[in-house]
């Protein structure tokens, strides 16, 4: 029984991690049809922002929840202004340019921080569920993922910015005629997506540690999750994360983590074959 709870918690926290990793990319893809392949490096920079701030004496929670998203959101704003904006409507070119950015950021981080793992200790200790010890930090990850989903839902469904953003996504020319400036909406959306990536990097930094090449481990998973989910941001990410993380964790438990990873990738391929436009290309159409 305790074992089942522990496995269940692993699965839930696995889903939460995958949601956190991919949600920033999902916002940018869902709203702007832009695939940011430097997304993994945005996470990496969020991790470095957290660790640098924490080592400089800033409260660890402030470093994770505030500094990481702010720093990376700002970087995202700059990237949007100088690269993404010039390539709107050219999906493949955007992917290539952001792939270049990804290499560029890896190179920069290696130059600045060196090619070693930087880390901070997890701020929460273990808790016991029956006889099984679980890291309390996993609960924190789940809480952050839930908070992000609620916040995004409110932002896009309830706020005026959300209304304008969704309108621009549906028909840029029409909303432009109604007085909205699409470039500003895109810039804000991209910054939000980047900030979410930074947040994810900050949250995961105590678990994974941070190296310049950290992003590579995440970007593919995030990319697959977002594409598997389809263009509907929240529902797509949630459903795809749910499927992929469950497959990954269960297969990891049954065999090895490597096979778990392969099972995740394999299930992604099958899913995309059955639903060529992602889960939300077929189900839950028109939601957020």
């Amino acid at each position: 029984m305790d074992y089942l709870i522990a496995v269940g918690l692993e699965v839930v926290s696995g889903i939460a991690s995958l949601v956190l990793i991919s949600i920033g990319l999902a916002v940018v893809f869902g709203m702007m049809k832009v695939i940011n392949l430097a997304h993994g490096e945005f996470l990496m920079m969020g991790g470095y922002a957290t660790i640098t701030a924490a080592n400089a004496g800033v409260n660890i929670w402030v470093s994770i929840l505030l500094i990481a998203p702010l720093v990376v959101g700002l970087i995202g704003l700059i990237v949007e202004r100088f690269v993404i904006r010039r390539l709107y409507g050219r999906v493949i070119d955007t992917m290539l340019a952001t792939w270049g950015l990804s290499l560029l950021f890896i190179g920069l981080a290696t130059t600045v921080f060196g090619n070693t793992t930087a880390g901070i200790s997890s701020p929460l200790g273990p808790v016991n569920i029956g006889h099984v010890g679980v890291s309390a930090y996993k609960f924190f990850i789940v809480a952050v993922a839930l908070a992000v989903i609620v916040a995004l839902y409110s932002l896009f469904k309830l706020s005026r910015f959300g209304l304008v953003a969704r309108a621009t996504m549906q028909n840029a020319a029409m909303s432009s005629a109604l007085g909205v400036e699409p470039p500003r909406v895109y810039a804000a959306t991209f910054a939000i997506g980047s900030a979410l990536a930074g947040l994810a990097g900050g949250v995961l930094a105590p678990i994974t540690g941070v190296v310049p090449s950290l992003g590579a481990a995440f970007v593919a998973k995030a990319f697959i999750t977002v594409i598997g989910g389809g263009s509907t941001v929240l529902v797509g990410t949630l459903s795809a994360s749910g499927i992929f993380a469950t497959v990954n964790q269960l297969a990891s438990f049954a065999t090895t983590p490597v096979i778990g990873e392969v099972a995740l990738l394999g299930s992604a391929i099958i899913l995309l074959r059955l639903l060529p436009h992602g889960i939300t290309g077929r189900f839950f159409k028109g939601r957020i």
Partner: protein
Amino acid sequence: MIGSRNYWPIAAAVIAALSAIVVLPAIYDEYSLLQLTIYAILSVLALSLAFIWGYGGILSFGHAVFFGLGAYSYAIGAINFGETTIALLLSMVIPGLFAAALGYFLFYGRISDVYLGAITLTVTLIFFNLASSTSGPEYRVGRVPLGGFNGIPSIPQLNVPGFPDWTLSTTELFALSVATLALVYIGLRLLINSDFGRIVVAIKENEVRAELLGYDARKYKLVTFVIGGAIAGLAGCLFANWGGFTSPAVFALGQSVQIIIWVVVGGVGTLAGPVIGCVLIQWLTNSLASLNTVNNNLIMGGILVVVVLMLPQGLVPTIARLARGRRPVQRLDAATKGLGGASTKSEARA
């Protein structure tokens, strides 16, 4: 240039290859020849993606899979059989078969664009993960342990078919690589100029229109993909010969990115461009590695970003246009158009 029945590039390729094979071994020592050999081998790889992406319109983010499969197939075949002729064939047949299976899955599933990118990327990761985790002694094909992360060492050199003792020397491997490059270039050029090639390009330009004219786009894409996969496998075979070993690094994401960078820098939609891009980038990588001051990723990333932003058509088409005395076509300011392309597409679907 596309589709014109113009044979001067073929003549140029023959002359360039013959003179390289005759002249270069006379000037350079063995070490430099080995350096030049890798340029030729990687150029073959660049050509394979140049064909399926530039002419077939299929952007595979996992093209290194076929390269890696070629290298592994050759290694396993050559060590098991001793005589390398079958191994050489295997290094093209196995990637070709895998490309056929994957391509059937993709094209007959009508998967395109980003989704195709996602799947090919995923396939690379699967291969990388699997190949890296085969370190135990139970993972062996015939007499060859797969070796996990360390890969397969001491792969035998190619021998002349039928003469197992006549293995290729450094100079002969160089000649073979250059000749392969020239033959692949000529073969692809002839293919592109053939009726088949014209249909492939037509499908790339407008798939719906080509289908309305009665061509089965799925079939043509599949054949294009298989040809590209087999050529990449051949490059992998030469690569395994060149280094004498192969490791899961051939499946790494970075390897696939490299190939894409070569093609982008040289020019998508040309054959000569990606070869030039490959040689240029590899030369740059080597020079920087020996300098050891600037981070290689920094430079590669910078180049890719700058090329996509400033020279979206790549070096060769831009230079060709400049040489003809015309300025590059100015693109409309994309920002003012907003996401025009994407939104019309989603409207059409809704």
